[in-house]
């Protein structure tokens, strides 16, 4: 299944992957650096879409479509709604980066250095053929393993989703109860006083 092969021998799939990967990476970088929040959200869409392409190249067909559907479709829209509801600045703004950014850059670079060097050290010459994995990535294969072997986590996940749904509604509603409202009002008053 897996063999080792020198890094210098490159296949067409790999070249494609690197190109898509560069797109993904670049979009990700833009996501966390651009000064326009809406642009950042859109770059996130690009990055997640590129990731779906990577999944395809890795022969995970079903996952790739799920990625497109959920992330690019749902999550991105959700984030844009979030931006809208919080009246985030639409245009360019300098307030997007906190004073922590240099420390963040150092930590991020260190993380990248550690992870890349460790991963590179571990799998320097590991090679596999994604075509052999195509059968594993079809909707049929994933569905059968999901419902054959992973039914219980699947059901648990549905409960989790329900809880998240309820939680999100509870958090978002204004009039949960009289007590909560009172507390919330008090908190509002405090916030306004501090502001």
């Amino acid at each position, binding site marked *: 299944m*897996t063999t080792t092969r020198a890094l210098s021998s490159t296949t067409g799939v*790999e070249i494609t992957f690197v190109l898509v990967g560069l797109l993904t990476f670049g979009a990700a970088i833009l996501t*966390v650096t651009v000064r326009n929040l809406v642009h950042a959200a859109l770059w*996130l869409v690009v990055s997640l879409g590129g990731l779906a392409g990577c999944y395809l190249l890795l022969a995970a067909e079903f996952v790739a479509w799920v990625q497109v559907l959920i992330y690019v479709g749902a999550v991105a829209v959700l984030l844009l709604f979030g931006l809208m509801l919080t009246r*985030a600045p639409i245009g360019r703004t300098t307030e997007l980066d*906190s004073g922590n950014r240099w420390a963040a850059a150092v930590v991020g670079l260190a993380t990248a250095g550690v992870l890349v060097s460790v991963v590179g050290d571990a799998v320097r010459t590991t090679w596999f053929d*994604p075509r052999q994995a195509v059968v594993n990535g079809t909707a049929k294969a994933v569905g059968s*393993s999901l419902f054959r*072997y992973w039914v219980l986590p699947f059901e648990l996940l549905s409960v989790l989703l329900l809880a998240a749904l309820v939680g*999100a509604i509870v958090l978002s509603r204004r009039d949960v109860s009289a007590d909560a409202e009172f507390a919330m009002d008090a908190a509002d008053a405090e916030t306004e006083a501090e502001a």
Partner: protein
Amino acid sequence: MHAIYPLTLAALLFAVGVYGVLARRNAVAVLMAIELLLNAVNLNLVTFSSLLRDQYGMGQVFTIFLITVAAAETGLGLAIVLLLYRNRGTAAIDDARELGEDGALGLKRVPPQADGDGNGNADAANTATATAARTPKAVTK
């Protein structure tokens, strides 16, 4: 395909996510960075799924699970951000610093109001008595 390409991409995405989580002020932008982190993990899972091709399809199934969890997390996170915004009028997370110590670096606390809020003062007094209780000798000397 060499495993090092997708794995390196995942590592880099993760690092970018880390940077984003730490550097962005807006809570929604932080949530975006968290998505990057999760997706970096997803990429790892898919890569190893292709690489190992186990009998149970574990890698891809878990990717799907993770996507689901990430969606739920985003929903909840946005609800929290919304609440934050509703209460404070801003979604900048470094403005929410009520748990900071008095006199901490760069923390400018609003002076206590005359309307009896007195939070800052009470805090200071509490801190002082707590210190005194911990080091009674220092106080007596």
